């Protein structure tokens, strides 16, 4: 039990009671795993991650986090919610909603301040994150005037600064250049090697392999169609194709067009 971080049993959720977003979800996430959630647009990835972060609660079914059933009532308990917020960090899909302070620096420090973290240690982490993500020149700028990629980096920094045990990221690499994507993957792998649980949603099959040892595939009916080891799932081209995750590649060789599915697990292919 102590090794289970999240356990969802037959969870259903719909927005405003009429837009279904999760349907009969059963899922167990163990400590120190790297989990990737993949699926087409609108399949429920963000909804699931928000539920794991205790921001929304199921219409039916149960969510257990760190061995406790979570719902509105458990979060009304201040010490529980503070403890939970300290343990679980969430990077939103839309960095605009995550950044609401006047300056980047204040935004990054918002979490530690709310959680009354130790000041000196926070400063140390801030310096490290700023160095890793290259945010030095941005600290005094207004977050809303940054580029999308810069915003995302700030959002990631503002989550990592509380040093959470569980890091949940909703499409963390969307809109980032290859170098920054690389940095972020490296950060996540490093955190995982320190025993952190990393849960990521993404469309980018290139990075799935690196940021996960377990993959959950969402179907179009807001259900998880399969959860399994990444190596297995990434080889299952028909499954991926059925859920909009692989696109057909067309390219020309000596005047003739040649079509094949974009094959991600092995990066080389022969013609």
């Amino acid at each position, binding site marked *: 039990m102590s090794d289970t971080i999240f356990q969802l049993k037959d969870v259903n959720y719909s927005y405003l009671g009429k837009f279904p977003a999760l349907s009969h979800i059963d899922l167990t996430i163990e400590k120190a795993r790297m989990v990737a959630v993949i699926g087409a647009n609108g399949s429920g990835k963000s909804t699931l991650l*928000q539920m794991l*972060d205790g*921001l929304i609660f199921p219409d039916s079914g149960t969510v257990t986090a760190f061995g406790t059933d979570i719902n509105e009532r458990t979060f009304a308990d*201040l010490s529980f*919610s*503070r403890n939970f*917020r*300290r343990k679980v*960090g*969430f990077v*939103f899909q*839309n960095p*605009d*909603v*995550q950044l*609401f*302070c*006047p*300056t980047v*620096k*204040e935004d990054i*420090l*918002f*979490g530690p*301040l*709310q*959680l*009354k973290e130790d000041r000196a240690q926070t400063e140390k982490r801030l310096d490290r994150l700023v160095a890793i993500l290259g945010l030095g020149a941005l600290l*005094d700028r*207004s977050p*809303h*005037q940054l580029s999308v990629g810069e915003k995302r980096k700030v959002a990631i920094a*503002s*989550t990592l600064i*509380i040093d959470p045990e569980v890091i949940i990221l909703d499409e963390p690499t969307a809109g980032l250049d290859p170098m920054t994507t690389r940095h972020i993957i490296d950060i996540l792998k490093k955190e995982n090697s320190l025993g952190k649980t990393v849960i990521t949603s993404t469309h980018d099959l290139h990075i799935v392999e690196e940021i996960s040892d377990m993959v959950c595939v969402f179907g179009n009916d807001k259900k998880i169609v399969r959860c399994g080891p990444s190596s297995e799932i990434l080889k299952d081209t028909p499954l991926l194709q059925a859920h909009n995750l692989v696109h057909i590649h067309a390219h020309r060789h000596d005047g003739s067009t040649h079509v094949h599915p974009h094959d991600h697990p092995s990066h080389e292919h022969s013609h």
Partner: protein
Amino acid sequence: MAFTIGNNFIERSITGAIAFLKESVFTDEYASRDGLMQSIDPRMKLVTSGMLLLTALLTKNIAVVLYIYSVSLIFTYLSKINIGFFLKRTWVFIPLFSLFIAVPALFNIFTPGEAIANFNIFGLHLIVTRPGLSGALLFVMRVITSVSIVVLLSITTRHSETLKALRLFKVPQIFVMIFGMCYRYIYLLIEAVENTYLAIRSRVGRQVHYKKGQQVVAWSMASLWQRSYRMNEEVYSAMLSRGYAGEPVVFNDFKTKPWDWMWLLLIIIICVIGVRFI
């Protein structure tokens, strides 16, 4: 930029106004220059601007107002702000105020006294009186001086610092926070209007039939509201997710330098000279 492709006057002026608003209010262009006012701690700047403002507003002597006005223009110059731009930006407010308050006060009906000029407008016999004239001048100078001080303060201070300074003057944190968010939303809304406009143009091409245009605009306004509503909810979630529990804890890192205290002293001297010796 959007307004170069616009082909009718209103369209051009609206997109122009949006761009202007964005540039003048929302970029910290002047605030990031390396000038006099920019070097002063925002709290000090707020206090000293208040002192200059009070001096200009409380005096009955136009010479004092003129003196404070010239001081503010000197500060403007030393803050590396183009004086021409500054005068244009501040004098635009004057006609508006003058029309309603200063101009009527010129005449004998409102301000009795020695006559210095006569008018006959539509059979109405109007006399400009000496106290009327000096009263109107004093008024106009006071307005322009106050506006200049406020504009100077606001364009030389980063928006975020103004907010922080407010917080230090015991404006409740939650207000400052809401204020800051409003500002952010206005910015995002302006961006959204601009982007939606660009998106419409790129989709329907140069000529937008005006009926069609109306529909599109109505639709995009609706979606804008919806978007901002949803965003509010999400921002709240984001705050919760990072440990917000009702009362935000904020970060103050203002440090006053000796220079700030010298500045305070300088302004006190300027004000005392104004009140005592002029």
